[in-house]
């Protein structure tokens, strides 16, 4: 964060965190996402997508979104809905995917722009943002199109390129369980990108299959600690075939 943001002097009391986090409906949870927002979307291979929140974002109608995501939707499902509504302007993704028809059409017409990032580097750039790191050196991408325009050097005898932290205003993620404080667990491989994005975004909004009492998740089994979660809304998961 910038020095100016931090040097605000006295701290003013807010509402208790617990009261602030629980939202009663999906639309309220995304109501303040403005046009031009940078948004991370969890999910991989049909699992762990925050499809209820995506639908709410479609209803809200936020435009000119920069979407950070592994893929670009499955037909009209997942992010496909937001492409269909022409809400997304720029994508930072690893693998748009074979069923991202609407995205592909808009990409071909130049209506949407794309930065392709190796999947692990996409994760690592988000984690760098989460961890307060500015950037890192990796040998992934050296000598490939991915290295174009990036600083290259040799460290420890290896060619490597500089990759920068990737921040977002919001993360929309999906969990299996959430307690009222925001501690999360994920089901099986529906975990995927969700915990990383939860850590990386300024405001993390989670749709959860189930809200459990505070203390119901064993402290040793919490996957995403409450500190990373800002809004919680319960919703039965939606899944798209594809």
């Amino acid at each position, binding site marked *: 964060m910038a020095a100016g943001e931090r040097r*605000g002097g006295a701290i003013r009391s807010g509402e208790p965190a617990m009261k602030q986090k629980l939202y009663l409906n999906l639309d309220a949870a995304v109501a303040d996402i403005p046009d031009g927002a940078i948004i991370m979307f969890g999910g991989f291979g049909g699992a762990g997508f925050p499809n209820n929140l995506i639908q709410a974002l479609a209803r809200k109608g936020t435009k000119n979104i920069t979407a950070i995501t592994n893929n670009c939707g499955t037909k009209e499902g997942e992010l496909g809905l937001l492409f269909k509504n022409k809400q997304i302007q720029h994508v930072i993704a690893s693998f748009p995917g074979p069923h991202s028809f609407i995205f592909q059409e808009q990409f071909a017409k130049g209506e949407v722009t794309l930065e392709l990032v190796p999947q692990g580097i996409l994760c690592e750039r988000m984690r760098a943002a989460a961890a*307060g790191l500015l950037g890192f050196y990796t040998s992934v991408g050296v000598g490939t199109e991915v290295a174009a325009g990036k600083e290259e050097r040799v460290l420890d005898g290896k060619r490597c390129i500089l990759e920068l932290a990737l921040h977002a205003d919001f993360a929309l993620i999906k969990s299996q369980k959430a307690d009222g404080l925001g501690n999360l667990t994920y089901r099986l491989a529906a975990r995927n990108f969700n915990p990383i994005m939860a*850590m990386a975004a300024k405001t993390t909004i989670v749709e959860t299959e189930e809200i459990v009492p505070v203390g119901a998740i064993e402290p040793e089994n919490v996957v995403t600690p409450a*500190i990373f979660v800002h809004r919680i809304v319960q919703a039965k998961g939606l899944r798209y075939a594809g």
Partner: protein
Amino acid sequence: MPDKPRLTREQIAQRAALELPDGAYVNLGWGIPNLIADYLPKGITVYFHSENGILGMGPRAKPGEEDYDLVDAMKVPVKLIPGASFFHQADAHLMTRGGHLDLAVLGGFQVSEKGDLANWKVPGAKGSGGIGGAMDIAAGAKKLMVCMEHTTKEGAPKIVKQCTYPLTCLACVTTIVTDLAVIDVLPEGLVLRETAPGWTAEEVQQQTEARLITRGRIPEMRSA
């Protein structure tokens, strides 16, 4: 004037406790900051973070109830509050550096008028010294409060124009609570917010090397 009563360490902690917002994620460092948890105002819930991988630390464990696998960063056995979580030390410091803590409270040897902090090493001290989590915490917390005595035992000011002790972090401190005053570090400089009972702004300034900005009447330090 140096004989006027100053706040005790406990009173500094008690005043500092009033700065903790309800629902905040907070890390308390060694020394006076570690006393703050004992003085939380009623009705306030704070989620204490420990850099060894705990969120939601509760009070110190009572004698006979200690579990030495559940210690804070000072090695003191503690309890958990409901909704606590464990994680490894890299994730603990992802939280500190990454701006996830609403507030950190550290002790200090010196704070400069720009909010630079020196708190890990005394020049000329014997031994290896040690940094611990202080640099990560100071660099990353959204707000950083320093609790310390206003002057050294020898009477030298600890709020200075420029730190002469080895630095912990540049331009990181947002509020200073001492045995004489509450001071905010703002873009325009050090702003005196409160003075200890019986101390005038001028008297506090005399104990301070850096210039203090005063605006109107400065109220007495709150205690609850």
